[in-house]
């Protein structure tokens, strides 16, 4: 048994060196596939970061009648903070709202003049509510509409913003869904390419496989060297891909950070390096071994 395994490994090893061209082609194609899968893994992180940063920009505001006191509003703020779906409630006083408006529109003389003409602060005090999940805004809005302090509320701008919130929600959900479909498709296509490359290489050795059968080699003796080669291809391709991604994340990570300061690809890559290498290794070995097995199968029938 041990002698047989040694012989299988020796034949596999010999094959690698005697047909270096085919080996290089296979490793090249496998590196492409593994890189694609690694990119999907890294892009998933980047896209979920982007999606959550878009979702964070969504909020609703509750405006209070002019006669409500600050204490009443602060009480409501406290009540709202207790709701588990609510992530954050910010109080904006009448004065603050006016200052925000002036700050935002100080360049616009028409608006500033109309504000002067009104002669008083026309803004209402409000609470700015941010939910942990965009689907929860409906619930928060219902809670406000039906609450005991409803008499203090002038308006909840959820109904106004509803279409925008829903659009963002469906956009991010679609983005995630189409991302998954697209990745699965790409992975499938690249698997096909690797499988066909290995199949073509084994097809070249078809006659040898048949001769081996005719001189009495058992199927495992014939498959063995190919499986060994498949494993070596997988390990080699995984190592090359890891090197490529180490360089890419190190080089481009800082440039991405300029665009999105909170997205640090290099740190993310380093902290997940073992997971990434495991994914690469499993993909490589899996591809190499499964493709070889499938490609040899039909030549073993003689």
């Amino acid at each position, binding site marked *: 048994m041990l*002698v*047989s395994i040694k012989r299988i490994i020796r034949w596999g090893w010999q094959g690698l060196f005697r047909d270096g061209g085919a080996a290089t082609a296979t490793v090249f194609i496998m590196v492409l596939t593994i890189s694609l899968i690694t990119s999907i893994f890294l892009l998933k992180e980047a896209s979920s970061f982007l999606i959550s940063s878009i979702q964070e920009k969504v909020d609703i505001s509750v405006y209070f009648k002019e006669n409500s006191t600050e204490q009443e509003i602060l009480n409501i703020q406290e009540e709202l903070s207790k709701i588990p779906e609510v992530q954050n409630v910010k109080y904006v006083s009448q004065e603050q709202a006016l200052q925000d408006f002036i700050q935002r529109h100080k360049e616009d003389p028409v608006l500033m003049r109309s504000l002067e003409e009104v002669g008083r602060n026309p803004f209402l005090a409000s609470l700015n509510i941010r939910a942990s999940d965009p689907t929860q805004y409906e619930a928060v809005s219902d809670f406000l509409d039906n609450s005991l302090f409803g008499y203090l509320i002038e308006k909840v701008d959820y109904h106004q913003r509803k279409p925008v919130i829903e659009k963002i929600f469906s956009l991010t959900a679609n983005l995630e869904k189409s991302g998954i479909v697209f990745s699965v498709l790409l992975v499938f296509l690249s698997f096909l390419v690797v499988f066909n490359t290995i199949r073509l290489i084994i097809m070249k050795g078809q006659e040898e496989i048949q001769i081996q*059968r005719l*001189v009495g080699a*058992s199927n495992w003796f014939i498959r063995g060297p190919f499986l060994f080669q498949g494993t070596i291809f997988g390990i080699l391709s995984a190592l090359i891909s890891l090197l490529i991604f180490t360089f890419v994340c190190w080089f481009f990570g800082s440039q991405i950070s300029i665009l999105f300061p909170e997205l640090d690809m290099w740190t993310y890559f380093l902290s997940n390096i073992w997971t990434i290498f495991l994914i690469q290794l499993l993909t490589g070995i899996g591809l190499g071994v499964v493709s070889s097995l499938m490609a040899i199968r039909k030549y073993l*029938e003689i």
Partner: protein
Amino acid sequence: MIKFQNVTKIYLENTIALEDLSFKINEKEFVSIVGKSGAGKTTLLKLLLAQEKPTRGRVFFDNQDVHKIRPEKLPELRRRIGSIFQDYKLLASKTCYENIAYVMEVLGKSNQEIEKDVPKILEIVGLTERAQNFPAELSAGERQRVAIARALIHRPDVILADEPTGNLDPYNTSEIIHLLLKINTLGTIVVLATHNKEIVNSLGKRVITLGQGKIIRDQEKGRFIL
């Protein structure tokens, strides 16, 4: 030991390679199969090696129907047969030495046995100098001798030789025939398919003559008559 029982092999409609063939080969026999090209000699050997299936009839090896053997058990049958193919069937990616050693490795022989036996057979077929060459680097005659060495190395029960001297000069031809005769005296069945009239006539052994897929003649101490 070997029995063909009403064997018919039809490749395509109207292409009958063998028709209702029945004969027996006993232990220790040396049988020549003769006939014109396309008479069915190679097909007959392929059926015995389970390389092809008969359209009708059965082929027995050691009382076992060769075509009822499960694919995973076929290697066991083939290890008992040493085949010399007309087109040599050498492993292109292995050297002469490795081609011959491969059969012993498949059989699970020890490295010591391989290192002892392979150089010996290479010397017998006169290829010691060529041990590390690949088949593509050899002449047709040299390839044929590697194929012969590979068929003999593991001392099989039966040797199937399909035109083993087709590419050899008269000197090498008589050497190889001598070798086959010697192996036969040690108890190995030899089935020799050939065109070579001189060889067959000089052997004085059993001759089965095929014509259009049928047995025309089957004679002990036969001669080459078509």
